[in-house]
Structure formats: structure tokens, C-alpha cells
């Protein structure tokens, strides 16, 4: 155990010595990883926020069924009962033409004076159907809307399906762009990190030769470079997290209009602790893979 601890301490010292010996190349690796993760993290943050918008709107998702004119109140209640028994429906509220008109009047505010001239109420009775938890999605909404439309006494069905589907497509597009960008940037970062570690390997070739001479195993020779890669990656990840947080706190408040467009009234959120740790860990992985690529291409001593 003492030997293992001593060996780990030696490897860590060697890695830190390597970073100190070539601070500029190490800084290049850290900045590359940080830039990659800032861009990827920004996309991840956007997707996460857009998904939370969907979740919030899901609570308010409802289908409105307009009933046929002249349907007797008993028949209206019968349709409401029937709708309440459909799969995916949580609750049904019958809205009378009078209540609908009253809501409309409240909704238009001062323009309500225009309604005074109406000789009769033009609004039909309707059913406001809220969705069960499992149906609060574009597909669930479509299923319930189709089932309601088939009910006897229903003249028309309205839902936010088109909007939801459009928004979903938007989320999918942003996510796809993010993943594509992440793959391209991660590959670029990997190559740059591999090159910087390879430079470090080349600049310490004399050291590697001596280590090999005194009986160092290949793992012992390679480990400091791997540790160096991981350290650079973790620092790069932490820097990226800090930059994203600064952007979130300082820049986003100035982008209210754009945010309103994408997120509606939903307040934007930053990464939680788990997501933040994941971002930093992603940096560590990038660094270690880069170092691994560099070491694998080095001939055995």
C-alpha cells in the first residue's frame, strides 16, 4: 500500500513537473478544451432549457372540444362524461356559451364595448379537457384530440398540437446541431491535446530513455502523460463551466427578447451540480483520450 501511494505520488509529481516544464503548450491544451466545452455546454444548456419549457407547457396542455350548436344541456353533459372516460384524459370541464362570452369579454378588456351590439351569443359551448400525466406530449395530445373529435356532438377540436410539434422539431434541431458540433469540436480538441502531449513526450524523450534504462514499466512512463492530459482536461472543463456561468449571469439578462422568443415566460436555468460535474468530467475524458492517442503513437522504448 505504501509502495502504491509512493508510486502515485511520484507519478503526480512527474505530471506536475511536466506541466511546469512546458506551461505554454499546457495552456494551449487547456484553452482548446475550454473553448470546446463552452460551445458544447452552451448548446447543452439551450437544449436543457427548451426541454424544461416543454415540461412546463405540458402542465397546461389541454384539448378544447367545441360542441355543436343547439345541443341540449343534458346532451352536452353526456358528451362531457363520455370525454372524461377516454384514455389519456385527466379531467373535463363543460364551458357554457355564457361563460365563454364572459371570458372573452374579460380578455378583450376595453374593447368589450363592441360586444354590446351583439343580438345573440355567437360562442358555442365547449369542453376543456386536461391531459393525464402520461399523455402530456405531442403524441398524447394528438391521440386525445382525435378521440374527442370522434365523439357524437363535437363540432370541432382545438389543441396546441402544431405549436408543440414545431417546438419539438426546434428542440431536436438544436440538439442535433449541438451533438454534431460536439463531435467535430471534440475531435479537434482531441487532436490538439494529442499534439500538445506528443510535444511534451518529444521534449522529454531523454527522460523517457533514462526511465526505460532504469527499469520503468511502460505504464510508469505513460502514466504522468495521462495524468497531465486529465489535469489539463479537468482545468479546461472547470474554466468552461466558469465562462458559461459568467455568460449566464452577465450576458443573458441583456438578451431578454431572444430568450422570450425561445423560452416564453420560463426563467432560464443553469446546470445543476450533477451536470456541472459531468461537464468537468467530459474535459478530463477529452484530456485523457488525447494523451492516450499521443502515447499510443509513441514507439516502445
Amino acid at each position, binding site marked *: 500500500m505504501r509502495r502504491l501511494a*509512493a*508510486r502515485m505520488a511520484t507519478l503526480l509529481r512527474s505530471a506536475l513537473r511536466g506541466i511546469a516544464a512546458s506551461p505554454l503548450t499546457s495552456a494551449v491544451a487547456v484553452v482548446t478544451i475550454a473553448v470546446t466545452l463552452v460551445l458544447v455546454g452552451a448548446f447543452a444548456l439551450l437544449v436543457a432549457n427548451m426541454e424544461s419549457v416543454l415540461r412546463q407547457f405540458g402542465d397546461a396542455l389541454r384539448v378544447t372540444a367545441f360542441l355543436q350548436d343547439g345541443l341540449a344541456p343534458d346532451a352536452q353533459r353526456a358528451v362531457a362524461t363520455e370525454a372524461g372516460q377516454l384514455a389519456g384524459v385527466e379531467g373535463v370541464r363543460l364551458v357554457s356559451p355564457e361563460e365563454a362570452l364572459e371570458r372573452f369579454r374579460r380578455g378583450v378588456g376595453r374593447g368589450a364595448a363592441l360586444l354590446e351590439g351583439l343580438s345573440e351569443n355567437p360562442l358555442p359551448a365547449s369542453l376543456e379537457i386536461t391531459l393525464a400525466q402520461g399523455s402530456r406530449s405531442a403524441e398524447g395530445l394528438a391521440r386525445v384530440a382525435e378521440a374527442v373529435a370522434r365523439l357524437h356532438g363535437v363540432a370541432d377540436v382545438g389543441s396546441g398540437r402544431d405549436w408543440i410539434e414545431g417546438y419539438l422539431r426546434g428542440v431536436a434541431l438544436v440538439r442535433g446541431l449541438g451533438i454534431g458540433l460536439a463531435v467535430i469540436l471534440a475531435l479537434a480538441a482531441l487532436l490538439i491535446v494529442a499534439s500538445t502531449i506528443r510535444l511534451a513526450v518529444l521534449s522529454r524523450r531523454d527522460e523517457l530513455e*533514462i526511465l526505460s*534504462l532504469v*527499469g*520503468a*514499466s*511502460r505504464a*510508469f512512463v505513460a502514466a504522468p502523460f495521462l495524468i497531465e492530459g486529465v489535469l489539463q482536461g479537468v482545468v479546461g472543463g472547470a474554466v468552461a463551466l466558469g465562462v458559461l456561468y459568467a455568460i449566464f449571469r452577465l450576458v443573458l439578462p441583456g438578451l431578454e427578447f431572444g430568450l422570450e422568443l425561445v423560452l416564453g415566460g420560463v426563467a432560464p436555468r443553469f446546470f445543476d451540480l450533477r451536470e456541472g460535474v459531468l461537464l468537468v468530467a467530459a474535459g478530463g475524458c477529452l484530456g485523457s483520450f488525447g494523451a492516450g492517442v499521443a502515447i499510443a503513437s509513441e514507439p516502445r522504448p
Partner: protein
Amino acid sequence: MTTRPTRQAKGETGAVGAGQPAVRLYHVSKSYSAGHFALRDVSLEFGRGEFVFLTGPSGAGKTTLLRLVFAAERPSEGQILVLGRNAPRLGPRAVPPLRRRIGVVFQDFKLLARRTVEENVAVALEVVGAPRREVRARVFAVLKQLGLQHRRFHHPPSLSGGEQQRVAIARALVNEPDILLADEPTGNLDHELAVEIMDLIAGAATRGTTVIVATHDMAIVSRYGKRSISLEGGRVVEDRPAPGGRP
């Protein structure tokens, strides 16, 4: 080519039996390009605790022979037993443990300029995971033995050639190796310093380490009166035993 009887000196520390030689070469040839041999059909034995000089002009094959012993090269033909292990057949994982039992000293010292004397010597113990306190104690002991303890926090470029070579010898000896190989260890030093360095190397043999020194300095060879093997064109042309049969 000739062979010598086995000598036994050092207590057993590995797979080698008490009466076995430390190094044995059987009909070893090494060629780097077709038709050009660095070593040709060499068969030799080096006993445990024996002190042997390899002599010959540049290109005679001295360095190649040493490199074969510490498994930096594989022979084109023949077999090499080092401390009871068939060196050419060792896999990548088995080479480092063998090298930990062999100290190597070079003409150009091969020291790390950015590390202190103490750190340069400590490298040989760190690779085996020795605890830091033990590393410090053993490094200090070997530096004191070589008269370098006051220089332990200096960096190699600030040392003289003789001091640098003593650091390299300290690194080679700190692990108490079974075999010490030295390739022209006095090549960069004047005669007085060369004798000083050779005395330190010879001291290892008195403690039971098999010492093989490649040199073309015949004054040094005759001064120590040890077995000397002369190589020319990759062949052993003479194997002169130590006067009086001393190891």
C-alpha cells in the same frame, strides 16, 4: 571465440543459481543491415562478481554487446541468458524487472538537466515504488559513498564532468544491481578523473556485482589487471583472463 569458467561471488538474489554465470552469450550475432554484422557468433560467459573489460576500436561491437545484455536490442541469432532469463525472449512486461537488476553508465552520463543530483539518482528507486523516506535515505547513502552528498541539490549542468559521471554511477548503483554495465565511462574525462571513476566502478565488483566495462583506454585496462575481452569487427579476438585468476 572463447568461454570462461563460471565464477560465483554474490549471494543469490534472483532466478540465477549460485553457480551460474550472470551473463551467458551463445553464438550471438547481431546485424543491423544485410551482410553487415555488429557482432558475429560471439559466445561468452561473465561470472557473478566478475570484473571484465571489453576492449576494441570504435565499431568493434562493444556497445552492441552491452545493449544486448540490458535488452535494448535483440540478437539476430543466438541466445543470451542474463541473470537466468532468456533476454531476447522476454516480453515487454518482463524487460523492466530485468533492467532494475542492471545498472548502466554511459560516456555522455545521460542525466536529466532539469533535475537535481538527488532527483537524478532517485529515479532508479522511484520506478520500483520505493517509499519517499527510503528513497531519500538510500540516495543520500550512495551519494555520500561517492563523495557527492554536498552536491545533492545541484543540477547536473553546474557539475564538472567527473562529478556528472559519479552521479550517473550513483544512479546505476543505488539499486544494488547484480550487473553494472559501463560504456566508455571515462571517455570524456582526463586520466586522473578516469582513474577516480574506475575505482568507484571497480568497488562495485568487490561488493559482488558483475561489472562489464567497455573501453578503448588500454592504460586503464592494464592498470586494473582484470579479465579483458578484445573485440574486432564484431568478433572476439582475444579473451585474456585476469592475472593470477582473480575475478
